[in-house]
């Protein structure tokens, strides 16, 4: 095309585009320009909401466990934004487990409605008495590997390593359990959302001690997105939450803040230099392991510090590239498992002790293609858990279609086993 024709085309486009776009409405200024990150702290409506909530609670006007909702509660419900939580579903496929290890239980979850969840126990499968449209996900083993915590709807169950499961609490039809985690060896902290038919973005917590009635749900600040496995600190005082400024993942997903349950405030996770951190997990003594990824330097800095503090000295610095699997805390041995420098391709699997010591555990196979459909890198690869004999590693990935898939790698043979087929999503799988 000639320069003249180009210029004429440019004039045509500008003549149509500029006035048309100028005619588009723009909302009145809804916010003042706020300096770096200031908006992430308490906003005015959130402060007002918290004050109203506190006053209502003090006045005894609102019992969260009750269906008798007064005017104050209705007012609060109007203030709360967010969606109802419907819940996850499970699927029957349990990946192949070590045939020589008689008691290894593994757990698979996916979104196929109606299927009961199944822990795979080598040589057999044991059906759990949980089914229906609101079965939970993200099961977690107690650090000693003797108890498996899982939930469905408002009910919380304990499993043992033989696959036997019993219900320990039913929090009522108003709720569904969003997340749950161990507090010490005997208690469970459950984060609750409204049942789907009630809706809304409210959140509550309830502490449950095995053999006793669960504590009445206590309201949390609404709209927080609880994230992490487990989400709570071992003392039950903190939750890891997603504040939308994560590092180490392409789309900023992950727990990038901590929520102080008693004070009702969110604190962004940052290091001493003010760089954002992503929560990796909790140590047995209640410190938070977190990571900062630097794409330009190609490094991931791991930190360990009390929640709410800004650590300055990294526990370890390892190689990192975009797409590297995200590490996890191996609660049974109080160490961080990381695959330094590994994208979806082969990489060493490393254990970093809390004193900074490192041990190479195995060589990971290429367990996830770096090219999804459409040619995009898989978005997030999470390492999840490692078996006690260090033979199996579970992982989950978010693929280029945003589907969640989970599987197990046999670290001896390099065999990769997915917990669900190509056309399904499966969320979580935890080894003991």
């Amino acid at each position, binding site marked *: *095309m000639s320069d003249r024709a*180009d210029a004429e*085309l*440019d004039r*045509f*486009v*500008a003549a*149509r*585009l*500029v006035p*048309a*776009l*100028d*005619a*588009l*409405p*723009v*909302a009145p*200024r*809804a*916010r003042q*320009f*706020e*300096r*770096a*990150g200031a*908006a*992430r*702290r308490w906003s005015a409506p959130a402060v007002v909401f918290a004050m109203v909530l506190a006053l209502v609670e003090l006045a005894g006007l609102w019992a969260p466990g009750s269906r008798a909702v007064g005017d104050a509660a209705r007012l609060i419900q109007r203030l709360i*934004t*967010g*969606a*109802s*939580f*419907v*819940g996850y579903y499970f699927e029957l496929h349990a990946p192949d487990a070590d045939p020589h290890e008689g008691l290894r239980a593994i757990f698979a979850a996916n979104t196929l409605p109606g299927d009961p969840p199944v822990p795979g126990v080598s040589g057999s499968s044991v059906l759990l008495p949980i089914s229906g449209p609101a079965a939970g996900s993200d099961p977690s083993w107690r650090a000693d590997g003797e108890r498996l915590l899982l939930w469905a709807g408002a009910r919380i169950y304990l499993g043992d390593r033989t696959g036997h499961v019993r219900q320990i609490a039913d929090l009522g039809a108003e709720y569904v359990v969003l997340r749950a985690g161990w507090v010490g060896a005997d208690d469970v902290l459950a984060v609750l959302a409204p049942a789907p038919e009630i809706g809304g*973005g409210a959140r509550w917590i309830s502490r449950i001690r095995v053999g006793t009635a669960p504590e009445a749900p206590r309201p949390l600040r609404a709209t927080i*997105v609880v994230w992490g496995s487990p989400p709570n600190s071992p003392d039950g005082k903190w939750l890891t939450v997603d504040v*939308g*400024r994560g590092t180490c993942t*392409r*789309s*900023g*997903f992950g727990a990038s803040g901590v929520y102080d349950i008693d004070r009702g405030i969110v*604190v*962004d996770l*940052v290091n001493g*230099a*003010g*760089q*954002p951190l992503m929560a990796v997990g909790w140590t047995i003594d209640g410190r938070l392991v977190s990571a900062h990824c630097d794409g330009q330097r190609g490094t991931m800095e791991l930190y360990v510090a009390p929640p709410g503090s800004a650590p300055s000295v990294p526990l370890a610095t390892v190689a990192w590239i975009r797409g590297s699997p995200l590490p996890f805390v191996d609660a049974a041995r109080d160490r961080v498992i990381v695959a330094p420098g590994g994208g979806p391709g082969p990489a060493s699997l490393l254990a970093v002790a809390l004193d900074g010591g490192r041990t190479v555990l195995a060589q990971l196979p290429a367990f996830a293609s770096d090219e999804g459909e459409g040619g995009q890198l898989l*978005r997030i690869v999470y390492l999840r858990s490692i078996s006690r004999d260090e033979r199996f590693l579970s992982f989950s990935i*978010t693929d280029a279609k*945003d589907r969640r898939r989970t599987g197990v790698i046999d670290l001896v043979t390099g065999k990769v086993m997915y917990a669900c087929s190509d056309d399904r999503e499966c969320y979580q799988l935890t080894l003991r």
Partner: protein
Amino acid sequence: MGACSDPGRSRVYSQRPDAPQERERRETAEVGVASDQTVSAETPWETIYVRTRPALVRALAAATGSYEGVEDAVHDAFVEAVRRAPADLRSVEGWLYAVALNRLRSQRRRAAILRRLRLAPAAQPGELDRALTRADISKTLRALAPRERELLIAKHYLGMTQEEIASYMRLPRGTVSAAISRAAARFRELEDRR
């Protein structure tokens, strides 16, 4: 909480020399700034925010087909600018557009996943989105590929040069040139047919 570099400081930037005067006049009039007031090297970001926000919001909404998250993305882009905008920016608006566009893509991906996980409500089109849908230009823009829309708006609405587009949006210069030519031709074809 992320530490900001120096919240009290006004970042130095330079106005791109070839910004269309008509746009300057229109924008300054829109925010009530005297038309003879130029943006100096010491112009505070707050002033730039007031001056450029309307055009950025429109550009981003038109480029992505929705107002969802646009205000947040613009705000985040300014926060980013305070922290790390290059001192020799030729097109502040263009740089902000590129940063906000990236933020917006991430936000939308993130929102989509949260919705899939039932952790966020389904998007409800608001009044602004309905207005966008009704706008005649929307039909034409929707028929273009997302990248074509973004580039066309960058060039013709925000007045970015191809070098600036390539630099800020991290695209090869040749790709930008070819994509804009293709998009412009397609735009004209669609408009002529309308």
